């Protein structure tokens, strides 16, 4: 935080750094950040909760994001989403009991000529069929 404090508009940068390190923004971080930047806790909390990307609890080992936007819908994203829910046994914003996977909706991955799209741990996958989805999950189950 010390190295970012002097830069213009540092709050988002600091939150990115925390989530980059821990995978989420713990509630205990909010007063620390507030104090460091001379902001109120409410202001920091307000920013954390405004942005969809910031999480307030620890995610699973692998983050699975299924695009819900129009282009992917035109190529069966709804059915793929149902399949993902059934395969992982969880709904959006949930994590599997073994802590392996978190499932999240996402609104456009910029891969609209290769819909439907899925992103897993920052790597993009296009024209994802239910079979391909299962193969990606199987790979995630093996990988540490």
């Amino acid at each position, binding site marked *: 935080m010390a190295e970012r404090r002097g830069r*213009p*508009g*540092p*709050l*988002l*940068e600091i*939150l*990115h750094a925390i989530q980059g390190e821990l995978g989420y923004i713990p509630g205990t971080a909010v007063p620390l950040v507030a104090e460091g930047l001379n902001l109120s806790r409410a202001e920091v909390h*307000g*920013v954390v909760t*405004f*942005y*969809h*990307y*910031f999480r307030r609890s620890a995610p699973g080992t692998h983050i699975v994001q299924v695009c819900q*936007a*129009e*282009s*992917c*819908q*035109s*190529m069966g994203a709804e059915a793929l989403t149902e399949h993902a829910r059934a395969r992982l046994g969880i709904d959006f914003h949930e994590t599997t009991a073994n802590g392996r996977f978190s499932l999240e909706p*996402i*609104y*456009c*991955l*910029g*891969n*609209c*000529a*290769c*819909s439907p*799209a899925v*992103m897993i741990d*920052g*790597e*993009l*996958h*296009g*024209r994802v069929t239910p079979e391909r989805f299962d193969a990606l999950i199987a790979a995630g189950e093996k990988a540490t």
Partner: protein
Amino acid sequence: MSTVVYVPGDAGARSLGAGEVAQALTAEARRRAADVTLVRNGSRGAYWLEPLVEVAIPAGRVAYGPVSAADVPGLFAADFLRGGGHSLALGATDSIPWLQGQQRLTFERVGVVDPTSVADYVKHGGYRGLARALTMSGADIVQAITASGLRGRGGAAFPTGIKWKTVLDQHTAQKYITCNADEGDSGTFADRMLMEGDPLSLIEGMTIAGIAVGATQGYIYLRIEYPHALRALQAAITAATQARYLGNDVAGSGRRFELEVRLGAGAYICGEETSMLESLEGKRGEVRVRPPLPAIKGLFGQPTVVNNVITLASVPWILDHGAEAYANFGTGKSRGTLPIQLAGNIRRGGLIERAFGLSLRELLYDYGGGSATGRPIRTVQVGGPLGAYIPASQFDTAVDYEALSGIGALLGHGGIVVFDDSVDMARMARYAMEFCAIESCGKCTPCRIGSTRGVEVIERIIQGIDAERNVQLLEELCDTMVQGSLCGLGGMAPYPVQSALKHFREDFRARPR
């Protein structure tokens, strides 16, 4: 002599296996002791051919695609390093019909150059625009941009020259150039392709903007959903800084321009310019009331240029070739070229850069080859989630700002999402309201509350509950949102709903489910 082989590092190509192809290629070359130099270029934009592998042979570049990792040994066996015949061979890349007819100005280097190499960029005409700009006064650069007719490619289509002139005319010590790279519209990926495939053109465009209006600091506001673009931009900024095209002595001119990437955090609204500025300042991305315009009081209260990636990346070409050359493309008040993105349920999707004026029909059938599913195309949504649905009866409309607005639609960022006849337009209308409810910044009540009420009303229509009365209620709600919202999210989210009601009324009647 080493043979140069190109395998795209573009996120879309990687999503179809380009990374595995590159690995297989390296391994197979080693096994055969073949002298191969692998370049991870951008995508040419013909996504149905990705991963598209190219080989530089003495006669030029030849292409193979779509290549999977399993095809790689066969390609070596067919002597593809010397352009050998193979079932995946597409001939000279430039003669692929889908690419050949395009008019690539802004995208002239995307898919061609090594995005990390300043030397390759310069070899392909890069930094000639900046060299020209450095011989001109700020006012003359702004005049050239005005004369080119360039309008904001992010969606609002505001004349870029006028915006720059406003910032130029402010007399403050600090001004900013900001690039809106929060490409959140479904069906659009031109910004991503450009940032991954030719990031230096964006950097050069921002540098020219800085020189023109007297700004020394630039920010690229990039969406978090684009990690590959982030890496490409950072590599390019480092390379440009090392080559002294960025820093306190830009290209030996004594002028200063520095550039930084700032990440968004998954908020669609931050693609709205004032919300983006709030976010860049580290705040909640709530929309600001205008006036004051960002060009007068923008980032940190200082005069700020806010332009989209494609707008800024078009600037080097305009400076290099002249305003008139750019204005010679296009039609009416839509001058220059537009990178159109063909997406969704389409056989040959991808990026098509052409002068304004092509019809939707040409795009959908000549370029796109019809739907991916083979069923009739029922509608297209142009301009992202706030754009209207256009019925097949209007496919002869030209893709330019005025023609589309003439039929109650909008061009936006140039994305076209295709739907076949299995689409349920009442559900698409409900999704438009859902999306608005999820992404509303909460400032204006019609957007914040109206979108949720909209979802409920459409749900009742879908359930067949008092459909006629609820359709009327929905129309009134749409009017309230359009009239009563500060920015385009609440003000335009009703467009897809209204267009669905207008053109596909049959989907809003009570029906068996």
